[in-house]
């Protein structure tokens, strides 16, 4: 971490990391920690306030809100991580090939990117869901396919600028194969940059997933997912606001928890800043 | 009657402000550039000579601060000025040229736009178009085709040419003092000669005062009237070039001079008869 960060910034980072840890733990430990089965419907107990073994109350179908939040963490975060992984794979593959190979390969790949970039992301996502159908995996595919092109362009730009640096030429003269040059000299800074961008974008993608689910295009009932939960709770906004508030709060906190470390990641990955004392 | 010195620095201190308190990088620096003289500031890389220039101009980066010292440009104290007033002073009374000319220009703007920016930021655009204002200074630095040059981008020009354009931009506002920080270091040997000769001619023609920062003794010898020797953030000695070079008071200065002299001796020995000057020149 940067020693020059002020105490406030460092405090914020600690809070964010703790939060991330808690949310991660929630997601991982849901099966053991959740007081009830999140999908267990019990209409007799619907819309109850907290109490009686239901720490946060129940929703309109009598399902335990707390358990649904916990299991929802798995779905929401798992989905987002799946999206990020797919985007990274696609953008690295396309961006590195385009940047390193150049020529008509570069041109062809970039025109493909242009096609994807032409459409507004949400519209494209909805179209893809329409084609692929609803469901968790399709949500991951759809959102990844709408976002990868932007990252691919950035990767390509970075590869182009690194390709011409003297240390790459020196590596070629030293006998390093093209593949190894990619691995040793080009990928590390590209991955670092992508990691920073991805953490900052995770919030955006979470909102995308939740948004699609809110519209009924994403995760299907009864799978708990924070966006779906907000959708379901719309009609109960005035009677049982907790049903909407808690999932919304979880989304907000998760987005924050990813954004703040993203800022610090740049410093952590930069050897110049890391060895400032040297 | 003593003219007002172009630059007068007294007891300048520059420190890096860090978590462990301020760390002084430049201490107790005092120097004077009299009117119409060239003062050379010489030292190794990292001795603080560039920082001194930035401190004088109020252009210190990030966590560096001027913690002590008085600076007077043409008799006017400027060390206490707020940033805006300092900017105006910078435009009117002192101009700067730096090392590595390519990095001082904005790659996406033509030379014309650079001229316009310089003229515009000091409200001189009213008198005539950019070409009218630029052509005379460009001619003065030896570039006669102002119309062509103004349309070029920085990357289309060589280092020597860019350096001359930078000097032209510096002269545009007719400052009496020029601070040149390693102006020839990144140029090839022949361009170095032409830039130095240009500075000498400008000094003669315009009465320009120059603070010339360099690591190369031969640049000082060629151009400077007085020399200031700096090492590790402090000034070791100063005085007229002839006097200091003939009889340096400090051991470091003596070793610096001796090292350069031995370089030259070695060069002249190696080249031997080739430097005799008796052979003619074949013109191709």
């Amino acid at each position, binding site marked *: 971490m940067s020693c020059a960060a002020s105490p406030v910034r460092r405090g914020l980072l600690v809070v964010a990391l703790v939060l991330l840890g808690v949310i991660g733990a929630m997601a991982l430990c849901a099966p053991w920690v959740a007081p009830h089965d999140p999908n267990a419907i019990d209409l007799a107990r619907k819309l109850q306030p907290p109490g009686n073994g239901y720490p946060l109350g129940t929703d309109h179908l009598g399902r335990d809100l707390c358990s649904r939040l916990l299991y929802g963490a798995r779905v929401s975060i798992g989905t987002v991580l799946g999206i990020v992984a797919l985007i990274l794979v696609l953008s690295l593959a396309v961006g590195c090939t385009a940047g390193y190979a150049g020529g008509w390969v570069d041109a062809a790949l970039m025109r493909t990117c242009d096609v994807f970039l032409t459409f507004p992301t949400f519209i494209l996502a909805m179209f893809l869901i329409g084609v692929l159908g609803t469901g968790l995996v399709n949500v991951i595919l759809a959102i990844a396919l709408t976002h990868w092109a932007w990252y691919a362009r950035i990767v390509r730009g970075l590869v182009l600028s690194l390709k011409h640096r*003297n240390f790459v030429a020196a590596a070629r003269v030293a006998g390093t194969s093209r593949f190894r040059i990619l691995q040793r000299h080009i990928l590390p800074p590209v991955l670092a940059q992508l990691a920073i961008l991805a953490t900052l974008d995770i919030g955006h993608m979470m909102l995308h997933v939740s948004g699609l689910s809110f519209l009924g295009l994403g995760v299907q009932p009864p799978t708990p997912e924070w966006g779906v939960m907000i959708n379901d709770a719309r009609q109960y906004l005035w009677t049982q606001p907790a049903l909407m508030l808690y999932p919304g709060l979880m989304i907000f906190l998760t987005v924050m928890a990813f954004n703040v470390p993203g800022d610090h990641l740049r410093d952590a990955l930069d*050897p110049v800043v890391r060895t400032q004392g040297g | 009657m003593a003219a007002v010195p172009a630059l007068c620095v007294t007891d300048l201190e520059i420190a890096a402000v860090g978590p462990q308190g301020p760390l002084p990088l430049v201490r107790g620096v005092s120097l004077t550039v009299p009117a119409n003289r060239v003062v050379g500031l010489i030292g190794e890389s990292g001795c603080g000579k560039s920082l001194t220039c930035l401190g004088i101009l109020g252009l210190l980066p990030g966590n560096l601060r001027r913690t002590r010292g008085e600076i007077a440009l043409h008799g006017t104290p400027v060390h206490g000025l707020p940033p805006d007033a300092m900017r105006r002073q910078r435009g009117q009374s002192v101009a700067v040229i730096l090392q590595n000319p390519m990095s001082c220009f904005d790659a996406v703007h033509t030379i014309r736009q650079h001229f316009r920016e310089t003229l515009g930021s000091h409200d001189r655009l009213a008198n005539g178009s950019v070409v009218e204002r630029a052509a005379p200074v460009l001619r003065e630095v030896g570039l006669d085709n102002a119309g062509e040059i103004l349309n070029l981008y920085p990357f289309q020009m*060589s280092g020597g040419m860019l350096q001359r354009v930078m000097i032209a931009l510096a002269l545009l506002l007719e400052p009496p003092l020029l601070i040149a920080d390693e102006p020839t270091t990144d140029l090839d*040997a022949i361009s170095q000669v032409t830039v130095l000769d240009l500075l000498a001619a400008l000094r003669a023609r315009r009465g320009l005062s120059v603070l010339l920062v360099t690591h190369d003794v031969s640049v000082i010898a060629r151009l400077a009237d007085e020399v200031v020797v700096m090492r590790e953030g402090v000034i070791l000695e100063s005085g007229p070039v002839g006097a200091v070079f003939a009889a340096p008071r400090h051991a470091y200065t003596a070793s610096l001079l001796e090292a350069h002299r031995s370089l030259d001796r070695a060069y002249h020995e190696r080249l031997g008869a080739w430097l005799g000057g008796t052979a003619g020149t*074949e013109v191709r």
Partner: protein
Amino acid sequence: MLLEVRGVAKEYRRGGLFGRGEPVPVLRGVDLALEEGASLGLIGRSGSGKSTLGRIVLGLERPDAGEVLFQGKNLHDLPEADRRRVRRDLQVVFQDTHSALNPRRTVGASVAEPLQNYERLSARDLRNRVGDLLELVGLAAADATKYPHQFSGGQLQRIAIARAIALHPRLIVLDEAVSSLDMLVQARIMDLLVDLQQRLGTAYLFIAHDLRVVARLTRRLAVMDAGRIATAVDLDRPPQLSIALALRCLMEAVPGPPPHSPHSVVAERSVAAYLTRGRGDV
């Protein structure tokens, strides 16, 4: 003959709207020869084509015409596998100290790279070899764990030299390797290079613009001007009756000893004409 350059020509296309602008010739038929263990200084003004020639000799760029023979084989016609074998004996030191080493890797890793490519060494052997190389160029073995930004310009060039000699190459191309350093640091690096040559028998192709520096290393010069070799000079032989203008100007660019350094008088008109020829620039 270790290195032979025959009739190498290269031009760049200034990009027009569709990428096919007018061609700009950078090299117009260059011939060079260098024996084992010898040094050749390739000097000229910026824009004379010397760096491009250096890159072509290193195999980083292909010439449009002519050939480069290294140890008797045409460098650019070799299949990739053979070229890799040849690369072992042909190394480089670049000018820009700060971009010639990967800033994210330790200097030890950068120096070890050629060794990792060509030799199978255990981790400990590799560390020892790197330590030996760093000491050979005047640094400490413990410096291997530091990053480039922790060193001065002169030290970075020493590290680059350590990387270049790691495989005991037959030829090292030094592309303005000392041009951005202080005069005194330049002299010390030149002395290091001379010392290494005596120990290892490496040949040098030293590209530079400053005669003072080149003269420390070698007696043989090739002066480049506008993409051609204007003249090839052997300083051990007496000067020719007339010295090529390009060389004369380079000599004039070197000042005499302090405190005063007037140029020696030369036909000013011809010098002025030389300076304003071509692109009309300096």
